[in-house]
Structure formats: C-alpha cells, structure tokens
C-alpha cells in the first residue's frame, strides 16, 4: 500500500491501542474488570509496527502487557473488551482475561502471566512452521526484565541451533515491575545476541513508522534465514499495573517517558485533519465494542467446567 495510507493505517492502530488502554483504565475504575491489568501506553508503536508486517499465518506469543499485541494481530474489539470484562462472548469466552487474551485463528497464541514463558512457545510455533513447510514466522514478544530469565537464553541457543524462523522482539521500556532494569540486568541485548550469533537490530520503539520499516526488513530476513532479535526502545508511561502508586519513581524519568509520545509521532506523519477523523472512527468503534461487552453474558459455569479437556469439551 502507498505511503500515505500506510501511515494512516499505522496511526489508526496506535490510536486504537491508546484509546483501548485508556478505556480499560476507566472500566477498571468502574469495577468491571477482574484482576489487575498492565497497560501499554507509550509502547503502542511496537505492537502496531511489528504486526503491520506480519501475515495472518505468522504467529506471536505475548506477555502480561499484551493488549496491544492482541489487537494489532487482529483480535476484534468486541471479542477483546468482552474478554477483559470476563464475558462469555470474549475471545477466550471470559476465561482468560487481560493476561491470557488469545486469538489463535489470527495467530495470537496468548498473552502470558508468566514472564518469558511465551518465548519457547513461539519457538515451538516456528518449529511447526518449519517442519510443516509453512511460509510463516513466529514472533516472541518479551520485556527487558525478562532478559534475566534463563529461559530467554536457552531459547536463543535453541532457535539458532535449529535455525528456526523466529523473531525475538524485546520491548525495552527500562522497567521490570517496580525497579529500573538497569538494576536488574548487567548486559545489553546486542552483546548477548552477538554471543549467540543471532543478528540484532535496535529501533526507536516510539516511532511506529521506524518500527514498521525495520520490522519489515527483519521479518523478511527471518523468513529466509532464521532467528533474529529486534530491540524496541520504548517507554512505560504509566505504572507497572493500572493503579500502581509508583512509589519512588523519579518524576523527571516519568516526564521523560512521556516526552516522545508514539501517538504524536505517528500523528505528525498524517495530513491535516486525517488523524482527527481516524480518532473519531476509533472512538466510535471502541464505544460500540464496550457497549457490546457491557451487556455480554457472563461465562457459564458448566461450559467452563467441561472445557478443561478436549474430549470433554
């Protein structure tokens, strides 16, 4: 598609994720969302940009901060909001919620409540793509805090050893829960990548155009020649979870995190008035989806209880 429409499409996705996250904060405050939720405000460009270069056959695994990944990979807003509100019409019939949104038909193999646990699942999906000769790649999203999990390191070795079509996407927002990752991790991902001989690229994760461009190049390489790492430098504008008091977070750092807003950066690429129109569309679509979710039925106990095994389902 042409430049303009591509910028518009990317902006639309960034705006959608932003408005979705903001709507979720309100719904949580309203008491409609069970559990805790992790918003990706400030990081929307990563999901929007990477997903813009994937096909439906490509698969991804996500993290606890996975709303944007799910939506960018194609999950319908109705199914998404109904899931977050734990309703039967949700993508997971209201049994996954924020940390487990999945849309397998669209290749979204699940958010994950366990740090780094999605990474080997992406490897396995890539292994299946390869073994079954599918022209598809798998993408493992993870945060910079997950770099401390040995599982990531095991997966880098295995992906390279088996030459799997898997892309490791690090959303480096500088935080791991309540502690800056500089106090958790002594290495940088580029150096680690070099040790494993896995090609590594860094991109401005707040610039959706840049993410889309670099991701496009990287994913093309992965399809042909095996594993790569894409490190997206981005910023967690809010707390670790919605409602996080963020005790002891340096105000200056928080201001800095807000400084390069992915939404503004994407917006600047559009023609006068175009963004406003998209914003209105998005607002409307989200309002409709939320309206749908609000009245969606609760999950049924017996159906849930019968769903534990396939045979019984």
């Amino acid at each position, binding site marked *: 598609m042409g430049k303009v429409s591509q910028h518009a499409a990317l902006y639309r996705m960034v705006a959608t994720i932003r408005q979705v996250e903001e709507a979720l904060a309100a719904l949580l405050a309203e008491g409609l969302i*069970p*559990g*805790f939720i992790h918003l990706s405000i400030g990081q929307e460009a990563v999901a929007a940009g990477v997903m813009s270069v994937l096909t439906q056959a490509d698969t991804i695994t996500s993290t606890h901060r996975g709303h944007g990944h799910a939506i960018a990979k194609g999950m319908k807003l109705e199914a998404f909001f109904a899931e977050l509100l*734990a*309703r039967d019409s949700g993508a997971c019939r*209201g*049994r*996954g*919620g924020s*940390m*487990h949104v999945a849309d397998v038909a669209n290749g979204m193999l699940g958010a*994950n*409540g*366990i*740090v*780094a646990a999605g990474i080997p699942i992406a490897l396995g999906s890539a292994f299946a793509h390869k073994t079954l000769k599918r022209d598809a790649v798998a993408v493992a999203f993870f945060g910079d*805090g*997950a770099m*401390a*999990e*040995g*599982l990531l390191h095991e997966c880098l070795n295995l992906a390279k050893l088996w030459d799997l079509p898997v892309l490791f996407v690090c959303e480096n927002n500088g935080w*791991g*829960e*309540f*502690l800056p990752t500089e*106090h*958790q*991790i002594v290495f940088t991902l580029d150096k680690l990548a070099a040790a494993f001989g896995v090609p590594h690229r860094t991109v401005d994760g707040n610039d959706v155009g840049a993410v889309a461009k670099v991701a496009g190049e990287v994913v093309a390489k992965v399809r042909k020649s095996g594993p790569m790492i894409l490190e997206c430098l981005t910023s967690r504008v809010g707390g670790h979870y919605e409602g996080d008091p963020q*005790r*002891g977070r340096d105000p200056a750092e928080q201001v800095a995190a807000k400084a390069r807003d992915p939404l503004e950066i994407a917006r600047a690429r559009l023609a006068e008035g175009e963004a406003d129109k998209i914003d209105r569309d998005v607002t409307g679509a989200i309002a409709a989806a939320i309206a749908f979710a609000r009245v969606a039925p*609760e*999950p049924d*106990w017996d159906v*849930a*209880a019968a*769903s*534990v095994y396939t045979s019984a389902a």
Partner: protein
Amino acid sequence: MMAELRYNHAVNRAMADAMAADPTVVLFGEDVAGAGGVYGATRGLRDRFGAERVRDTPISEAAFVGLAVGAALSGLKPIVEISFIDFMTFAMDAMVNQAAKMRTMFGGQVSVPMVLRTQNGGGAGSGPQHSQCLEAWFAHVPGLKVVCPGDPASAYGLLRAAIADPDPVIVIEHKALYAMRVPEPEALPILPIGKAVIVRPGRDLTIVSYGGALRAVAETAATLSAEGIEAEIVDLRSIQPWDEAAVLNSLSHTHRLLIVHEAVEAFGVGAEIAARMADIGFDELDAPILRVGAPFMPSPIAKALERRYMPNTNSILAAVRRLLA
C-alpha cells in the same frame, strides 16, 4: 481507635524482629527492597536493615532461590520471596532436589536454614496463573516443611518459627488475607511448626482447614451454630508436618470429618488427611470423610465463577448437610 494488627504487617514485623535479633538473617526477592513487595509485606526493611541484607533480585527465580540454598549452607539465614506461588514452576529444583535433600544426602553434615516466603490463592480475579494453591507439591517432598498461616497472629508466629528453624521451610501466605485485621494481640508468640489449633470448639463434626479457606469455614460454623449444630474447627497452620494427633483427637469426639481447603480437591492436602484418618481414625468414623476443595479446573477470572470455584458457605454447608444426613 484501638490498635489493630494487619496480616501483611504481621509478616513484616516477623521479619523485622528476626533481622533485629539475628544479623545472619537476610532477605531477597523481586521488588522486596525498593518497592516493599507486591503486598507491602517487606516495606521499610531495607531502610532499616540496609541494602546489604535486603535486596531486590532480577527476574531469575531459579538462580536466586538456588542462591538462598548456598547462602544457608555458608552461614546465613536467608528469607527468599517468590511473589506468587505460581512462579515456583521456575524454582522447583533448588527447593526439591537441593534444599530438601541435602541434610539426608550429605549424611547430616549440613542443615539448610532457609525460608521461602510466597503467597497463594484466589479471590482477586487474578486468573489461572496467579491464583493457584500448590502446597500439596511441597508437602510431598521429604525434607521440606510447609506452613500456611490463616490469620495475622499465625502469620507472625509461624514466620518467626520458620526463620528460627534449622531446616528449609516454605511459608505460604494468602493474597486475600494480607489486608485482614485483628485487634492487636496481647502477645505475639512464636508458634510451633506442626501444631494445629482448635479455633472453634464443637461436638457435632470436625472441620479441618487452613489458610485462605478458614474464613468461609468460620462463617459456615456460625450459620450452623444458629441451627444448633456445633462444628469444631481445626486450623492446621502447618501442612508438613501436620498435626495428625490434633485431628484424630477432634475426630474421636465428633466422629465426623470434613476437610476444607482452597486448593484443587483432587490430590490436594485434604487427600492425605482423609487417607490418614481412614486408617488410624477408621474406628472413630460414623460417616464418610468429606472434602471441599476447588473443582478440577483452572481458576476462572469472572467474579461469579471464581466465587463458586473457591470454598464458600454454600459448598461447605452442602457438605456438612451430607455429612450429618
């Protein structure tokens, strides 16, 4: 306003008192130092005891729990926190294959005086990967001790006992109890690991429970009492070792046994209690031994389903009716 003791403050005070009394007690885990823990149980400890003794770890559960084992072998008394018991899936080896077995395997050369603090349970809509009750796994492992405090005083007394214990102890707090308050007790004694307590005397049936399920059990007992049915409630407090004698003794005057816990019923802690009583307590039994635990499915997130999933007055009452029928 009269002084109260909050569960998470009791946990905090237990660590503070132990660290003040013994300079070899150290504490580490994810966000325990700077943030004071997800549930505030470690707040203020780094300021008080210093950054050497109270440390934040990277997200490397296997490594830092293993580190605790080595530290315990070399003169420290580490308290290590795993913020949700669900994450123990990454840290099983250090506890099960190392800490638990070293004393026997090394011929008594060592003790492994470490405490692993974690929390389990539902009620917060946290979903299938943040609500599990996995205590039965650890109770099955020779060499480990497991306690599940169900109130603030137990949280203090059992944690102090765990820190003082020469062997590895897993202390499983409950996320829904952290905000529980009781009037500040006169005294906060260290409680013996392995001893249960009768939290409510009764003649008609024995309800054995622990941890997060105790509140629903107490409510149910109150309801029953209004009907003239007096349930004796035994709070196990310790799961490994558990107080067989106390349960048998209660059974021997009520002759009816119900076990209630939040963990999945199948292959849960209640199975062992029922099995032992079906052996050594067989002659005392006037009725089948019943259990109330979670059904065999992952935790739901929808509030209504989660309420039904967890032991509640309805499910406990239904079991009691069956037991007395």
